[in-house]
C-alpha cells in the first residue's frame, strides 16, 4: 500500500486502486485542500489527454488509411509526391484543430451541404455491409427490454439499397438462410420477416430498432439524416482532395471525411466517409465503435453498384409474395 498522494491520485484515475487505497485517498483528500486541488488538476489533465490522443490517432489513421487505399501499381518515384501530399494533409488536419478551426468549420459545413445535396441527385446505390470488429462493452448499458428481445438477424454480410429521401431496403440473411428485409419508401417503414405478416408503419423509425445506430440518432440507413447528425454531434474534418499525378481521371478522385464524436453526444466514436470528389457519391462509410446493445461494432459499408432500381423497389410489396398478410400499425 502506498500513501503517496500523487501516486494514489494517478492510480485512482487509472482505476487501479484497491478498496483500501481508495479509503486512504479519501482520508488524505479530507485532510488537505492542497491535495484536493492536486486531484482536480490531475483529473483535468487526464480528461484532456483523452481528447488529444483521440485527435492524434484520428490524424494518424487518416495517413495509414490513405496509404492502404493507394493502388499498388504506382511508379516508385510517384510515391514521394504522395507521401508529401498525405503528410501535408495530416498536418492540415492537425493545423485546423490547432488554430481554432474557423476556416475548417466553414469548409466542412459547405462540404457536408454538398454531400447531402449529392444524395438527392445520385442514382440508387447498393452497399455491402461488413462488421470488422465486435467488442463487448465494458459497461453493459443494455436496457432490460433489449435483453429480452429475440436475437437480431446478423448485420454482417447484409446488403443495403439506398435512394434519396431516406429510402432504403436492408436485406439480412438469418442463420437459417432465410431473408429478413426491412426498409422505408420515405412515407412508411416496413419489415418483411421470414414468417408472419408483413408489418407496415407510418413511424419511419419503427423497424430501425434492431439496427445499429438507431439509439444514437446516427441511422446507418438514412444517409441524409446521418450526415445531418454529423454536423451537430461530431467534430468533422475534410481531407483535401488528393493531388494526383495525372493518370487518375477527375471522376475517380476521392475525398475523405473523418468525424469524431464530440463529448456529450452518443453514437459511433468515429465516422469515416470516402466519396467521389466531383459527384459526392459516397463510396464507403466506416463507423468505428458504434453502440449496438451491449456491443461496440466497427462497420464498413462499401459501394458495390450504382444504378436505377425499379420505381417501387423501396415499397414493401416488392419484397414479398402477394398472398402475405400485411398489418398496418
Amino acid at each position: 500500500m502506498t500513501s503517496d498522494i500523487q501516486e494514489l491520485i494517478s492510480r485512482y484515475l487509472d482505476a487501479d486502486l484497491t478498496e483500501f487505497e481508495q479509503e486512504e485517498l479519501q482520508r488524505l483528500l479530507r485532510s488537505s485542500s492542497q491535495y484536493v486541488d492536486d486531484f482536480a488538476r490531475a483529473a483535468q489533465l487526464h480528461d484532456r489527454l483523452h481528447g488529444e490522443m483521440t485527435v492524434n490517432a484520428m490524424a494518424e489513421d487518416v495517413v495509414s488509411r490513405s496509404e492502404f487505399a493507394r493502388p499498388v501499381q504506382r511508379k516508385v518515384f510517384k510515391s514521394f509526391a504522395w507521401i508529401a501530399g498525405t503528410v501535408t494533409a495530416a498536418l492540415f488536419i492537425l493545423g485546423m484543430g490547432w488554430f481554432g478551426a474557423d476556416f475548417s468549420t466553414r469548409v466542412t459545413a459547405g462540404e457536408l451541404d454538398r454531400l447531402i445535396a449529392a444524395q438527392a441527385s445520385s442514382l440508387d446505390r447498393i452497399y455491402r455491409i461488413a462488421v470488422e470488429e465486435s467488442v463487448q462493452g465494458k459497461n453493459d448499458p443494455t436496457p432490460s427490454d433489449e435483453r429480452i428481445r429475440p436475437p437480431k438477424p446478423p448485420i454482417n454480410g447484409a446488403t443495403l439499397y439506398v435512394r434519396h429521401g431516406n429510402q432504403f431496403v436492408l436485406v439480412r440473411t438469418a442463420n437459417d438462410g432465410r431473408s429478413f428485409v426491412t426498409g422505408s419508401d420515405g412515407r412508411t417503414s416496413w419489415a418483411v420477416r421470414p414468417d408472419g405478416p408483413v408489418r407496415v408503419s407510418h413511424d419511419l423509425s419503427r423497424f430501425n430498432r434492431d439496427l445499429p445506430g438507431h439509439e444514437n440518432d446516427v441511422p446507418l440507413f438514412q444517409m441524409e439524416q446521418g450526415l445531418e447528425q454529423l454536423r451537430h454531434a461530431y467534430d468533422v474534418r475534410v481531407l483535401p482532395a488528393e493531388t494526383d499525378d495525372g493518370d487518375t481521371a477527375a471522376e475517380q478522385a476521392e475525398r475523405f471525411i473523418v468525424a469524431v464524436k464530440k463529448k456529450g453526444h452518443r453514437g459511433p466514436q468515429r465516422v469515416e466517409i470516402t466519396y467521389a470528389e466531383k459527384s459526392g457519391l459516397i463510396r464507403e462509410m466506416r463507423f468505428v465503435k458504434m453502440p449496438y446493445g451491449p456491443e461496440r461494432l466497427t462497420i464498413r459499408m462499401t459501394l458495390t453498384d450504382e444504378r436505377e432500381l425499379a420505381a417501387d423497389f423501396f415499397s414493401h410489396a416488392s419484397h414479398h409474395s402477394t398472398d402475405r398478410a400485411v398489418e398496418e400499425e
Partner: protein
Amino acid sequence: MDDQTRKATRYWTLAQPVVSAFVGSLVRDFAARDDVLQETAVAVIESFDRYDESRPFVGWALGIAQNQVRLYLRRRQRDRLVFDDDVVLLLAEAFEATAPEEQRSLAFLRDCLQRLPERSRELCELRYFRDLKPSSIANALGMAPNSVAKALQRIRDQLRECVSSKAATEGVTG
C-alpha cells in the same frame, strides 16, 4: 433557437471541459463519462431558467453533474461512488476554483505531447485512445502492471511540468 437557449448553450460550451473532467474523475470510464455528460447537458439546458446569473455558471453546472453521476450509478446498480458526498463537494469546489488557470495551461498540451518520446506516446495512445487500463496495457506490452502504472504517472508528471512551464513563459497563468 431562442435567446435563452442560445445563452445556455454558450455558457455550457465554456463550462464543458471542466464538467467533463469532473464527471470523468467520478465514473472513471470515458464511455460512461460521455453518457453522463450528455445527460448533464440536457439537464443544464432544460433547467437553465432556474440558474441564478449572479453565481458562477461552472459551479451550478457541476452541481447538476453531481446529480447526474448519482442517477447514472443508481441505474447501473453494480457501481457506486468511490467518494463520500462531503468529498465530492470538496472536489466540485476545487474543480471550479482551479479550472480557469488549468484550462489555459492545458491549451499547450498538444505541443507537449508531441515532445514525448515515442514509447511514452505509445503508452498514452493505449491508455487514452484505446482506453486500456494498466493491467491490459501490461499484458499487451509484456510489462508488469505496476511498471505501467508508474510509467503513466511519470508521463503525466512530465506533461504537467511542460504545460506549466509553457503557460508561465507565455504569461497565461495567475
